[in-house]
């Protein structure tokens, strides 16, 4: 029995408990859809196609995991992820001369700082979470433009292992990093005191405050994680393309929100796990890839993604109503 046992019903019934229905359905749907695509779509299962799915999933997924800590702690969304990623992509390329890991570290440091500042504004000064992060996003985008002069920065030298290297054919290093972050995030969220406090804060901020939980610290922490996630996503995109600019992460905010909500994280906070974020990300990545392979236009992909989020939100609302 694990520490997580107290927070969910175990066994087969637990998978379909009202709080877990959506997450379970998406997990099953992802596997079924993937297997069906492998069977019926030519070249879908090829190493190059699997790898392109995983590239798309890794960047969005890592940003979504960071974002999920904000959502689960009860502060809806951070809407500054895209501009943080863009700035981080510029920093990554600019620092890539030092090597892959130092450049990645520099990007992450940038994300941590931006996250910390937003966390202090929301958690300590108690400003509105949505407005503050939109404002921060605008500020960060402005700063990035100023620093880069609005130009695209190009990496020196050839592609790096982080940009295009694979563990085995079809499994890029970026996907390995994504997997690691999901596992670490899941374990921290379910097994640590901070994870429990963060989740409890999400289910009921007032009760958490009155119970003497470290709510301010948890809120700040969640934004720090979101900033770091967005920065890693930006660095990975930069590593793939060898360029850093303001267009990186243009639709990262919505993609991350979509992945998280589709996976079964509740908008209201407190409900949902990091593995749900991973399954939501993979579900959308596989779905988008199927559309892509079948030559559906970008606008169709956008509409499908929008529809998927609407369905997820509706399902969440209906489940919540049924419980009352």
């Amino acid at each position: 029995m694990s520490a997580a046992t107290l927070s969910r019903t175990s066994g087969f019934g637990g998978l379909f408990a009202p709080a877990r229905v959506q997450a379970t359905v998406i997990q099953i749907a992802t596997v079924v859809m993937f297997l069906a695509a492998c069977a019926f779509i030519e070249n879908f299962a090829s190493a190059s196609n699997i790898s392109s799915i995983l590239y798309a999933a890794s960047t969005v997924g890592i940003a979504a995991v960071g974002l999920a800590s904000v959502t689960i702690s009860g502060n809806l969304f951070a809407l500054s992820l895209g501009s943080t990623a863009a700035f981080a992509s510029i920093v990554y390329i600019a620092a890539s001369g030092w090597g892959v890991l130092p450049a990645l570290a520099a990007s992450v440091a940038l994300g941590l700082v931006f996250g910390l500042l937003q966390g202090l504004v929301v958690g300590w000064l108690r400003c509105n979470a949505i407005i503050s992060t939109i404002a921060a996003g605008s500020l960060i985008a402005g700063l990035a433009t100023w620093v880069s002069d609005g130009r695209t920065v190009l990496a020196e030298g050839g592609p790096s292992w982080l940009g295009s290297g694979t563990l085995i054919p079809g499994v890029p290093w970026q996907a390995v990093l994504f997997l690691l972050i999901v596992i670490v995030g899941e374990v921290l969220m379910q097994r640590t005191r901070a994870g429990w406090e963060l989740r409890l804060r999400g289910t009921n901020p007032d009760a958490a405050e009155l119970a003497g939980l470290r709510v301010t610290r948890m809120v700040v922490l969640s934004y720090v994680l979101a900033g770091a996630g967005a920065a890693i996503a930006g660095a990975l995109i930069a590593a793939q393309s060898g360029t850093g600019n303001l267009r990186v992460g243009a639709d990262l905010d919505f993609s991350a929100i979509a992945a998280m909500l589709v996976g079964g994280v509740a908008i209201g906070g407190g409900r949902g796990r990091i593995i749900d974020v991973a399954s939501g990300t993979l579900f959308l990545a596989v779905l988008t890839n199927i559309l892509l392979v079948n030559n559906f236009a970008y606008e169709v992909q956008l509409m499908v993604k929008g529809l998927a989020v609407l369905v997820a939100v509706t399902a969440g609302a209906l489940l919540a109503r049924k419980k009352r």
Partner: protein
Amino acid sequence: MSAPILSARGLKKSYGGVRALRGMDIDLAEGEIHGLCGENGAGKSTLVKILGGLVEPDEGELGIGGMQVELGTPVDPALLSIVHQELSIIPHLSVLDNVMLGARDVGRIYRRGPFRAHVRQVLDSVGLEHVSLDVQAETLPLAERQLIEIARGIARGARVLLLDEPTATLSDGEIEKVFAVMRRLKAEQGTTIVIISHRLNEIFALTDRVTVLRSGQHVMTANTAELTNARLVEAMIGHELQTGEIAPSQAREGVAPRLSLTGWSLPGRFASLELDVQPGQIVSLVGQLGSGADTLLESLAGLHPARGALSLDGKAATPRGIAEAYAAGIAYVSEDRAKRGVFLEAAIGTNLVSQILDRVSRNGWMVSSDVRERATQLAQNFAIDPARLPHDVSTLSGGNQQKVSLGKAAALGPRLLLLNEPTRGVDIGARAEIYAQLRRLAEADGLTILFYSTDLEEVLDASDRIVTFYRGAMVRDALRPQMDADAILHDILHGPDTPNTEAAA
């Protein structure tokens, strides 16, 4: 009995697997006040919602005023009106608009003029002669808002009024006002009134007949005059109440005080006061809203910046925030269970250990065996089924939720436990369990308990010592045997007899 004004037959309703009502019959006579009694989860609220057409039953029929009613669609408010448990007054609207809210004869464009005279008359009839039609509802005290809600039902000319715990948030003085209105309605207009209440003294004071529900079934309907308290309780819980009134322990002489307040005051809320409380004593702070008694309790938990000195076991420990209070060994349980007391959407076990996470973790990692052990132990202490630990608190009845709320505070092992309305909306069986556990904590661990309550029955049943308040000043501080309901009511409604009593200035 003449033909009943309302008659329901075989009402059944299930939510998921839970059978809330399993075949309920009820008849209401014209012009009676009818009490609905039952523990939490007995099906009272479901019954009221079905009668009002807010919930569609799975089976059954309903007739009101001799007409068959279509179930699951809102009933004509001229026939039947519900006054809800949670106030449904819109704070920013005027009194007039609040009374007119939801009226059917308004037409497409709302012109207030034609309705003013009628609403004025209705307000006068519920004792709100002094309240202007155009004043905003939020400026009125809670009792008057509740009266406005009743006025809404009357304005629609309802022949049956259903009141779902109309007094849960009111103090005793205010409750009397509401009751007077109900008695007059019955006498003057022949209105049939159904009242749900957990306070049995209200049932006896007010009703003509009582219907008892248990586990979604009709247990009995009887004339109130022929009932005794014990018989009613037995019908509600299905067996005799084991504990009965808990014998209060006497104060011990020569024991150093656990809590000591000197010059403790909060300007505008309560005047400077001195108070010493011994270990193991259960003290109730009693007063109407605005008396300062509840604010005093909250200030002891560091929720208000009070002046003066607070010491625990002789050591200064004035808390400047809830975290400091917890660190000093002072625990606080909120009166607002759902919003501030518990984490409804988290597991019962998680809730129970939520305030002692530092003790069930090591280096930041939760230790699952410790979590399970502590949660199980707390559940047993507070009569919560340990098998339900993994389920969300929201799946519990109000009484059991309150046990969780108390359990998570008691987990801290405090030296001083502060309870704000310890059993609001809790049924009588769970109440006895809660009092018994509080008494155990006080006797075995020497825990000092202070509670604020607007429920006289609770004050008399659960305290060793009673401190009364009136308009921000302490009126009397006496041991339980020296106090009775009349004395308390006198203190909290009228204050001290002469300027020279022991009231702190």
